[in-house]
């Protein structure tokens, strides 16, 4: 070392996570022809879009964003999506489940949840636009199958994940080579936890859809989960709606995403609440993961995120 003063040699953990995310954004933009970023307007995808913004500044984000629209949306979320996309000047592509239903490409499941039929709609959009890399906001702390997935996750021509046959991922050397029709799902938030996401939202002063903060809402209690009463959720016999203060920890299909009781109406209060909470994000809010011990693994094998 020829310098007199030693540098401040350690990055704090949020900076280190951000630096990794920015590295991944640039690696994908450099190595793939047609990347796309999956943007649901949920908090994770909002953070991911921020990483993309930082990775290429002062240039614009060099790829479009894609929203898989189930048609079961919270209106606040769609309004937020359109606003954020306009602010950043990125192109928004929408893969519409209602359109796919109308054309007969998929059929409405008997249980009313469109979670599972998102997958063929996503895969059709990938094929149509010939996307070869798809950024997803999934985190490894969310779910045990995700804990085993690579950051660059190879998908075959059918969009399928094969957990027994994943490419080794050593150092930060990501293998981006694929044959036509295959794709890579890239998860730049793999190493982030729910708390990291919220700390980053606070630090970056990122705006989120209002439903992430505590508000009065009419809900029903279904198997211990609080579901909003709306047109996507027909009441079952004996269910009695009531109004209480809730917020959403995840934003997904309005028919399968539950709210949690909360008084946290600011980002600081949400961080306090998460620091003290004793139930995982998906456990508290996602009806779709309750199907079986390996529900997520099974969906991912089919091409789900």
């Amino acid at each position, binding site marked *: 070392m020829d*310098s007199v003063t030693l*540098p*401040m*040699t350690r*990055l*704090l*953990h*949020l*900076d*280190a*996570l*951000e*630096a990794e995310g*920015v*590295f991944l954004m*640039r*690696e994908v*933009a450099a190595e793939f022809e047609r990347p796309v970023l999956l943007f649901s307007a949920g908090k994770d995808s909002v953070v991911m879009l921020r990483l993309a913004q*930082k*990775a*290429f*500044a*002062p*240039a614009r984000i060099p790829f479009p964003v894609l929203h898989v629209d189930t048609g079961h949306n919270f209106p606040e979320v769609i309004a937020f999506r359109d606003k954020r996309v306009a602010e950043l000047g990125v192109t928004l592509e929408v893969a519409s489940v209602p359109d796919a239903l109308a054309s007969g490409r998929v059929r409405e499941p008997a249980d009313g949840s469109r979670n599972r039929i998102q997958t063929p709609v996503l895969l059709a959009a990938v094929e149509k636009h010939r996307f070869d890399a798809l950024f997803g906001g999934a985190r*490894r*702390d969310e779910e*045990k*199958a995700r*804990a*085993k997935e690579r950051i660059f996750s190879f998908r075959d021509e059918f969009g399928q994940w094969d*957990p*027994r046959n*994943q*490419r*080794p*991922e*050593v*150092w*930060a*050397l990501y*293998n981006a*080579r694929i*044959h036509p029709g295959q794709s890579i799902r890239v998860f730049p938030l*793999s*190493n982030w936890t729910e*708390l990291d996401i919220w*700390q980053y939202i*606070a*630090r970056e002063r990122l705006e989120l859809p209002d439903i992430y903060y505590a508000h009065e809402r009419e809900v029903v209690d279904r198997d211990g989960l609080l579901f909003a009463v709306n047109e996507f959720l027909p009441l079952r016999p004996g269910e009695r709606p009531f109004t209480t203060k809730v917020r959403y920890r995840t934003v997904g299909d309005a028919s399968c995403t539950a709210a949690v009781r909360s008084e946290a109406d600011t980002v*600081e209060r949400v*961080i*306090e609440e998460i620091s003290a*909470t*004793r*139930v*995982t994000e998906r*456990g*508290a809010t996602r009806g779709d993961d309750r199907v079986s*011990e*390996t529900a997520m693994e099974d969906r991912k094998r089919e091409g789900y995120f």
Partner: protein
Amino acid sequence: MSSGVLDPLRMTDQSPPTELLRFATAGSVDDGKSTLLGRLLYDSKSLFEDQIAAVEALSASRGHEWADLSLFTDGLRAEREQGITIDVAYRYFATPRRRFIIADTPGHLQYTRNMVTGASTADVALILVDARKRLVEQSRRHAFLCSLLRVPRLVLCVNKMDLVGWSGSVFHHIREEFSAFAAQLGVPEPAAIPISALHGDNIVSRSANMPWYDGPSLLDHLEGVHVASYRNLVDARFPVQYVIRPQSSGHPDYRGYAGQIASGTLRPGDEVVVLPSGLTSVISSIETADGPVPEAFPPMSVTIRLAGDLDVARGDMICVPHHPAAVTREVEAMVCWMDDTRPLTPGGRYTVKHTTRSVRAVVSELSYRLDVNSLGRDTAATSLSLNEIGLVRLRTMTPLLCDEYPRNRVTGSLIIIDETTNATVAAGMITRTR
């Protein structure tokens, strides 16, 4: 970004200045590795009620007497069915002092490639041994792989101390045997901790069952272990990852070289050399989306702007001029073969990915295959199969800009890709740059 390093205004009460530590775990089948991790997560209160309830229910349905903590980490269907860990799993937990990323790597013989994967990014490696079995071949193999991958710190966890009557002499014997082996490998003196993952002894707090042990608990050790910022103290290296050219009316002539600092520290005003051209320039500014920074060091992702008109592209490398990286078309590398379909054979043609550069390469020679148990060299070997390690010579079509791995983990590492299947078939560590 570096405005977030020291600026107290950006640290709220909720986000104390915690550091990130990555550690990998290695152990043989039934050494209790998953149980140890489950215990670490459980006792540090990093598990949630629904996760605990799910594991308790599953354990009860299998007739186990107590919650099977390994179920917290074994996620795939086949793993749960067979009671084994197949793939590297990543786990996360935090204490007020550190944020941890755990690479949980399976110990079976056939999954050595996963061990290499986990160790490649680890600051610390935990090597688990069963107190009843002493050092088995697998433990030596794990220690060897950690030394090969230059994991800066090793921790020997002697588990199942409850099954040897909490015996200090058993522990000391294993520790001495391991230290001797570590010395043979040339790795720094490993820490050693006697534990019972099943009962939680010496995991989070000190155990009352082993008064003869006066060291820290495992968690205390992980919170306090000093991981030298070795990457900062070696010569500066900046592999150019992406060229930023907005070509917009606001930035008509902007040209910036984006990437992540691999090693050393760079500052505006520093004279640099750009490889492979060898042209020199001066850093005019180092920028991030949050503004310019006075210096950049690993693992910061930044954009470097150079004075003058240089033609710099992805795959080039910005270095300090007095000790630049080697520019070479021939390297010697220790490789771990990871492909189960075809072996490495001399003459084979591949793509090598090294930093941000991909080049075509031929394996010109297999010098020897290493026996990771005896550390013996088999110079008669003609191929490397899955999980075998050997020294090869690689000749590349275009130059690599590299350092020897022991000096620089980022610019000394490479992967080998099969051009037909696109599979990642090997991880390599450069041992000689000519």
